[in-house]
């Protein structure tokens, strides 16, 4: 069985979905809105903290692409990834179309890999579209100066973090086996991880503010504080960090790999052992 043939089938199927096409249109729109927003604000007379915003903002093509990426990473495209992954697994399971694929001579791991591969293609397509449009429009409006390397790495980072997010969503979808359940499960997980991140951030700040004689927290608390870069919000925010030239901690990369590989492993095992209705 050719893996490429399966990938082709899943990609064609995915791209034929209305939601996938809508996502592509939205990616293109973000690629246009980013530069336009940057242009509008950099040309405005808005004063922030006593400084003229127009002078503070650097308007150039890479910055335009960065703005577009920031808009994208504000959970807009992740929402589409969540929707598409849950449709392509849990939706097909509920609609019984997955069963029709599984009576063919293909292994379940191959089916999952093809679905994740198709998602990777779609994510790559949305990012490429957005990058090309925002860079192109930015170059026309503002010129080509700026930090090209950082923003390009930011797009690569967004691709990687969305892929990890997709693998994790796939794991949830194989466990709960329903589109609504996957969406609710992932939303709860994201909210929980955000709240945990904020709680750890505040607790660490409070602990550091204490005078040394009062600061006698157990060692476990410091381990918890140190785990912040491993949280999903950090691992799935690679793109934004790389786009601003931040040096990422190795634990963030480890967390990214953990959510990607762990998500895949759970999805693969859960699917292998599940009964197909």
């Amino acid at each position, binding site marked *: 069985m050719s893996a490429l043939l399966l990938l082709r089938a899943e990609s064609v199927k995915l791209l034929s979905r209305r939601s996938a096409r809508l996502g592509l249109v939205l990616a293109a729109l973000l690629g246009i809105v980013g530069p336009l927003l940057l242009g509008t604000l950099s040309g405005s007379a808005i004063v922030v903290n006593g400084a003229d915003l127009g002078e503070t903002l650097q308007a150039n093509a890479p910055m335009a692409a960065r703005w577009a990426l920031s808009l994208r990473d504000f959970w807009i495209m992740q929402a589409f990834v969540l929707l598409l992954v849950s449709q392509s697994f849990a939706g097909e399971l509920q609609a019984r179309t997955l069963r029709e694929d*599984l009576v063919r001579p293909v292994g379940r791991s191959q089916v999952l890999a093809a679905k994740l591969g198709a998602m990777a293609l779609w994510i790559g397509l949305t990012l490429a579209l957005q990058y090309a449009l925002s860079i192109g429009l930015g170059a026309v409006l503002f010129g080509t100066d700026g930090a090209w390397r950082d923003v390009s790495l930011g797009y690569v980072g967004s691709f990687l973090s969305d892929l990890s997010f997709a693998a994790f969503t796939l794991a949830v979808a194989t466990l709960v086996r329903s589109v609504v359940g996957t969406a609710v499960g992932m939303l709860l997980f994201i909210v929980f991880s955000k709240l945990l991140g904020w709680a750890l951030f505040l607790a660490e700040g409070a602990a550091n503010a204490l005078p040394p004689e009062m600061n006698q927290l157990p060692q476990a608390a410091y381990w918890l504080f140190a785990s912040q870069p491993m949280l999903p919000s950090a691992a799935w925010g690679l793109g934004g960090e790389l786009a601003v030239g931040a040096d990422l901690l190795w634990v963030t990369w480890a967390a990214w790999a953990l959510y990607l590989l762990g998500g895949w492993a759970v999805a693969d095992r859960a699917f292998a052992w599940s009964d197909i209705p």
Partner: protein
Amino acid sequence: MEVRGLTHRFGARVAVQSLDLTVRKGDVYGFLGPNGAGKTTAMRCMVGLLRPHQGSVQIFGEGHPVRARARLGAMIETPAFHDWMSGRDNLWLSACYLGLPDPHAELDRVLDRVGLRERALDKAGAYSLGMRQRLSIARALLGQPKLLLLDEPTNGLDPRGMHEVRQLVRSLALHDGITVFLSTHLLAEVQAICNRVGILQKGRLQAEGTVEELLARGDQADGMVEVSSSDPAALAAAVAALPGAEAKGEGTQGRLRVIVQAPLDVPGLIAGLVERGVPLTSVVPQRRSLEDVFLELTG
């Protein structure tokens, strides 16, 4: 296909228990059973959608489910399609899953086989139930399988659609040399097109054999007639008094159904009734149907 000791449970409920059956090359095997007997569960185990708790399934000598499906076409329960895609595109997806790199000629072949080529570019969601059944059979025929598993292929079809599907299945077996494993409720259909039959009840195989073997089962092997008389009471009394004759309730058109067992035969029954002064008005020999056997075995 060899199924040995197949058992599957849903929680505490045993859906299929120690199922043994054999489908030989060239068979058109009718898999019968009432609703909830476990037919679909058994078929889902056969194609690897469910993991059996016990037992094994071998298809063309291959026990590994993925490799076993290489020469298998299956239609399990109500067909499902990606409704926003055309019928042809749905088949193309399946062809990719089968590993057919350039399947267009194969798509044309199976669409022609089920008479759907003219509507192939319509969206699957716009198909009637009959068309969906035919498209599903077309999908099962992709890649020229040697064994076809069809689960209630005439379900929901009108009489014309049922006739078409029946003709198609018969033709697949006779002309294409495909072995067919067919689950259905339609006993007349099985009697018409199947050479071997298995009857499942509460997850257990109650009987298996050729149609003739099943029809010849049990006490009714000797003969059954329906008899009427202008004096039904005298008829009933005479039948009860005749050794080898047993009344089996009301038959068609108010006649009394009588089982005749050796050494008594039908001429002997008639002679005995006439001797006892029963005014006979009709004696209609009955050929036992698969429905009779089915009802007898499934309670």
